[in-house]
């Protein structure tokens, strides 16, 4: 028989990891950790609502991020706007398959997979889906680990706009999709942080 800390009235501080005894009866009172003074609760408050909000916002911003041009190479006066996908295709056609694969994974696969995984996790909690909790926790850790790598394309843009700034010969300019894509990355990071994995394991105790 497994016993969770919540069943014993013990809350783990999410900031410093200290255990404290708090009573669940007095909801109006707010508790603070004795060691680091961070607010204490058994589970992250409003975890699923926040998670849905960030996920939906990120999903809608995926549309402008993928349709609008993210990078424009102006060479000898001729502009050549690239979306995220056309940039990958060009790299592939230039026989740079390895780099094309890295950019594809970082800028297209990771944000999409992340959104799908977060939605699966939220639905697993809300609809009590019969999924393995071990596997869901692995998915949760995976999105935490992989999330930051979506920044790759944005860093590359910041390198290219300064590196290729050669007047009439060639210039690189960032496009409107760059801001939208940055928002997608940040929102998916927030969504992953606001999901509380302990909710998955609470399904056992219901």
């Amino acid at each position, binding site marked *: 028989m497994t016993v969770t800390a919540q069943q014993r009235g013990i809350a783990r501080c999410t900031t410093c990891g200290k255990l404290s005894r708090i009573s669940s009866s007095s909801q109006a009172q707010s508790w603070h950790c004795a060691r680091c003074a961070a607010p204490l609760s058994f589970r992250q408050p409003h975890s699923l609502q926040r998670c849905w909000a960030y996920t939906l916002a990120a999903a809608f911003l995926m549309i402008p991020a993928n349709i609008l041009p993210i990078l424009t190479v102006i060479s000898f006066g001729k502009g050549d706007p690239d979306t995220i996908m056309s940039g990958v295709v060009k790299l592939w056609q230039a026989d740079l398959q390895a780099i094309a694969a890295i950019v594809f994974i970082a800028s297209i696969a990771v944000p999409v997979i992340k959104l799908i995984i977060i939605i699966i996790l939220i639905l697993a909690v809300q609809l009590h889906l019969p999924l393995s909790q*071990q596997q869901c926790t692995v998915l949760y850790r995976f999105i935490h680990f992989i999330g930051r790598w979506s920044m790759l394309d944005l860093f590359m843009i910041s390198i290219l706009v300064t590196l290729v700034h050669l007047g009439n*010969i060639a210039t690189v300019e960032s496009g409107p999709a760059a801001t939208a894509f940055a928002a997608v990355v940040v929102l998916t990071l927030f969504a992953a942080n606001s999901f509380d994995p302990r909710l998955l394991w609470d399904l056992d105790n219901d």
Partner: protein
Amino acid sequence: MMTSTSQIPKGLTACPDCDLLLHTSNSDHRQEGHCPRCAATLWHASSPTADIDLAAAVSGLLLFIPAMSLPILKLNMVGQQGSNSLLGGVGRLWLESEHLLAVLILLCSLLAPLMHLLLTTMIGISIRFGRYPSYFPAWLKCKVWMQNWSMLEVYVMGIIVAYVKMMDPGEVSVASGTYCLVGLLLCIILCSQYFHEEQAWQYWEQRS
């Protein structure tokens, strides 16, 4: 309202990922501990060489200014020269009125790594001298936040992608900034690996 922790028995741990309540004896803290239900890391092995994080943080700070301001890549295209630095990239984006993007890149590639190293140094020095100012908890919390937003390893991958992308139309070469950046990245990795957060919190709790 502050809680009293006197009722919590020593050696009780709760898993951060699945909230399982566990009894642990203090003797097995030499090795890394894992949750039996969800395999989360409960504690890291406590290492006897505690000063690696401080040393890495100080070396990282020494490398910081050259890594940010020296040119990272150099491009030669039809006789024209171009180069970029990390700070220059942020400045260029700001001039092109991509303000949000510039601020985000400034945070992830400059501010967060700098604050991470600075705060680790300050925390390390505090622990060494056994003096804990009242902002010590704020430093620790801020350090964790900055560590999460420091993404220099992704930036270095971005340099590789940019290098390969520009190989075809022009002539690219790696400049001195990249070497400083790689050294800085190694310092940051060492600094995050050897920093023992639970121990720092315990020092704060046991301050006299």
